């Protein structure tokens, strides 16, 4: 493509930004609404095209035009009796197990770190940045480094009687779970931080006052108050682990998770539309989980709101308070 084409593209991309900067809200708003819709198309368009193509018949190819839509052929192919598909199904199974474990670990680590950051301790700043560092570490580097560490450590592990061979189950799961939990940790941690920021520590003090031990206070007061956060952190762990690829890539050895299977298929074999149907299945599964999380947290939120209303005896005219935006 010529420089001129690039220039045109650049100008078109700049339109919403320019509108936002130079036009009053009245005029910029339609531009921003339009650019938002285009943005959504940009984000979802490829996936939707993939979705359409995944519905083709046996004649279907990887690109347009679509053949014989709504046959469901490539979905039934996922169940076919071939080595390729057996590998894929095996990958799905492993991914689900790994993700479940990562979910639990992320939840526990996020909770403990969240509890830790409610106290002041030396080096809290460094620990905070270390947690965020994992967000900013390119996956390939993390994977590379851990694979070096494993290469170096394997003989020593074997010496002390830990029968570790890189990439073989069940110990081979450890590095996979390790990097995936590191990846999910900052998300889970930030969820816990936001929960604890709104959390009223006086409930704990009251429980202690009434004679509860530390362990009991944690179990009976703290945990019930923050469990939505723990659940959210776990869900972050699950979904991010399920879709994780770059971090897992070099440390998985012979264990192929679903994203790894997908990568191998797309980079080595002749592509057929079952890749799309597989993609669609993973997308739907991820969205199902997010939906589930949103419903659970909405229900939890409503319960909390109801409890507060009852505390107030329901006498406050909340609608009136919301309607009046002034500060008085």
């Amino acid at each position, binding site marked *: 493509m010529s420089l001129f084409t690039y220039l045109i593209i650049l100008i078109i991309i700049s339109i919403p930004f320019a509108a936002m900067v130079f036009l009053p809200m009245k005029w910029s708003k339609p531009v921003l609404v339009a650019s938002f819709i285009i943005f959504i198309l940009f984000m979802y368009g490829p996936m939707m095209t993939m979705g359409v193509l995944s519905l083709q018949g046996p004649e279907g190819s990887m690109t347009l035009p679509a053949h014989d839509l709504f046959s469901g052929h490539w979905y039934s192919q996922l169940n076919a009796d071939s080595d390729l598909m057996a590998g894929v199904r095996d990958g799905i199974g492993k991914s689900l197990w790994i993700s479940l474990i990562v979910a639990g670990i992320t939840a526990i680590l996020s909770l403990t770190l969240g509890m830790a950051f409610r106290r002041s301790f030396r080096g809290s700043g460094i620990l905070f940045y270390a947690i965020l560092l994992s967000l900013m570490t390119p996956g390939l580097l993390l994977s590379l480094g851990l694979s070096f560490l494993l290469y170096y450590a394997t003989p020593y592990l074997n010496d002390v009687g830990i029968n570790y061979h890189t990439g073989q189950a069940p110990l081979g799961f450890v590095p996979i779970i390790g990097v995936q939990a590191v990846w999910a940790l900052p998300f889970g941690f930030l969820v816990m931080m936001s929960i604890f920021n709104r959390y009223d520590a006086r409930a704990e003090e009251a429980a202690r006052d009434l004679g509860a031990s530390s362990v009991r206070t944690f179990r009976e007061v703290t945990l019930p108050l923050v469990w939505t956060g723990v659940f959210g952190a776990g869900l972050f762990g699950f979904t991010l682990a399920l879709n994780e690829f770059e971090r897992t890539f070099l440390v998985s050895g012979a264990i192929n998770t679903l994203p790894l299977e997908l990568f191998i298929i797309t980079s080595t074999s002749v592509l057929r539309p079952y890749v799309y149907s597989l993609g669609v299945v993973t997308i739907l599964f991820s969205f199902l989980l997010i939906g589930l999380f949103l419903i659970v947290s909405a229900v939890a939120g409503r319960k909390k709101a109801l409890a507060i209303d009852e505390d107030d005896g329901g006498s406050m005219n909340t*609608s*009136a308070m919301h*309607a*009046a*935006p*002034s*500060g*008085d």
Partner: protein
Amino acid sequence: MSDTGLVLKDVYRVFPGNVTAVSDVNLEIKNGEYVVFLGPSGCGKTTTLRMIGGHDDPSSGTITIDGELLNGVTPAKRPITTVFQHYALFPHKSVLQNVAFGLKMQGMDKAERETQAKAAIELVGLTAMMDRKPRELSGGQQQRVALGRVLVTRPKAILLDEPLGGLDRLLQLKMRVELRALQRELGITFIHVTHNQEEALSMADRIVVMGDAIVQQVGTPEKLARQPRNEFVATFMGDNNVLKGTIASASGGVIVIDTPYGKVEVEGTGNVGDESSMAIRASAVKVSTDAVPAINGIKVRLDFAEYLGDSVKLHMDLDGKPFMAKVHEERYAEIRAYEGKDITASWTREDGHLLEQ
């Protein structure tokens, strides 16, 4: 251009969902006046202020300044600026840049606007801190930057939304003096919103008491303190005792109200048999161990004498209702001896004040 000052005529503000925030407000504020809007939270005072400043629009009614209609005029185009609650300083700009902002927006060149901004900074006494960022200043200093920022644009009126709200008590007392002195010196109209009675009494030329979305009373501090118009104002201003009953007789500009605690007389007119109420200021109540007089006197039990430094506030019990008196602090020791005992509270007819129903 006339010089009628700020006029609010039949102003209403109804929020979606039919919540009336401000109802039937009629006010005339003369140029150079220091007016305080006083009321409990949710009374409509901030909404009224926002409508004057152009941050909200009246649902009906008009707002004019010196005869010019302000309805629909953007805040930017009004000759009125606001000192926001918590000051709303620009955190990324220095004191000088904050103060010069309004002039920059008017398109004034840099040298000129800096000269004027520096003059305003000097006026509020912050010359030494010109290059600091707002977060490097104390609450009182931030307050003065906010003042400097609005003064520099030479508005006809300055609106202050709870300007002393974020300061501790000692600083509040000092800033009251400073704000008032500044306003006198500038001769600009100040409209100040607060929920603090003492603040309003100490600063205002006139106070506008708002309650339940309407203006309850407008008057000078003395007028509000001595002659609250109705029960709302009497109770909200504090240190007032309200007695209710039916009118027993009315003649010669004096009525006698029959209350459950005895007869009281008060100057005013009314129809015999009507419900009526009157207020007596706590400081007008005399306490003694004398016999209860036939009129303008009641028997009360002294619960607690509160020492206030320059006076003693007596919390008394009138058949389960509070009754208050204020006496000179010299009498503290004497009064304390009567805690838990019955005493007599009395007042003269002139100190009683008939309330509107």
